[in-house]
């Protein structure tokens, strides 16, 4: 992801209390959110702010002495170190940016991912859809907020509701003396009725009958 808005210092301080701080780039690991890179934006950001990385280290049995070293020595596929960062780390950033890496040990992989998700969403304000779908699934976030993972159900509901709303006024019988031709002739009144009905959330055809009958 691209660094855009730095987190508030107070939020950072509160969230990262207890985390091990290193003035070093993040170790190898799996990024939990989209980590695109635009060099110009990163340069601009680095003029004013440090890059911050959170590394959640999954260490079930507590065998890892030095968290940073553990991540550095493990192959990427191990799935032990999960990273949330302002931007995907590249060597060239070392010359341009000051960087801080925060590490924390987790006995439960779900807790590790949940913590990074919480930081991203609540401290950095990242929309949930920018997180890796597997992370959203693993943390159970898809059940909490299904829109983050799958919109097919929402889409169906939207189409269904829109279709029924659209058909409703057409299926109601026209009162005697009212025809399409008279509606066209009285377009201004029909439009006014439509707007009023929209604003008030009431049936447009009934309102039109009351307002527009001559």
């Amino acid at each position, binding site marked *: 992801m691209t660094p855009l808005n730095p987190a508030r210092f107070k939020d950072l301080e509160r969230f990262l209390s207890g985390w091990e701080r290193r003035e070093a780039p993040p170790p190898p690991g799996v990024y939990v959110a989209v980590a695109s890179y635009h060099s110009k934006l990163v340069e601009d950001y680095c003029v004013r702010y440090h890059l911050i990385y959170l590394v959640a280290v999954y260490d079930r049995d507590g065998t890892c002495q030095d968290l940073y070293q553990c991540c550095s020595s493990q192959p990427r596929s191990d799935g032990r170190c999960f990273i949330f960062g302002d931007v995907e780390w590249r060597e060239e950033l070392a010359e341009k940016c000051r960087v801080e890496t925060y590490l924390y040990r987790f006995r439960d992989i779900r807790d590790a991912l949940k913590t990074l998700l919480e930081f991203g969403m609540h401290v950095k304000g990242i929309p949930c859809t920018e997180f890796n779908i597997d992370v959203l699934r693993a943390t159970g976030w898809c059940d909490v907020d299904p829109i983050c993972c799958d919109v097919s159900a929402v889409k169906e509901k939207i189409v269904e509701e829109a279709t029924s709303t*659209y058909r409703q006024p057409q299926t109601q019988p026209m009162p005697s003396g009212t025809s399409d031709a008279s509606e066209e002739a009285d377009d201004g009144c029909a439009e006014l009725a439509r707007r009023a009905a929209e604003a008030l959330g009431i049936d447009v055809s009934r309102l039109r009958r009351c307002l527009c009958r001559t």
Partner: protein
Amino acid sequence: MPHIDVLLEACKKKEVAAARPRLCALLLMYKHLPRVGVVYLRTTAYRTLVQKWLEDMPGLTGEDKRVIMQKLMKAIGEAVAELKKKVGGVAPTATLRRAVLRLLLEELRKPG
């Protein structure tokens, strides 16, 4: 947003575009934001986009096009005003994408 195309497809139905103009307007805005650079937030910048969008919609009468165009442009105007308050009149595209995405998610969570 990974599901954007699915939702945009739904907005191709005139019923959906007419009933959920804000949702469709936000989807169009999000879809057509440039990948990088800076965006000047103006409602009129989206007029041609909406017109082209309506041209591709099947089975629309002239009156349908007029009504939906009016609704979409109104929704875009409102969204632009909200975004201006949040990110300013000129914003990096990445900031804007994120802000539009937030509005979009809020809109999707709203009941019809």
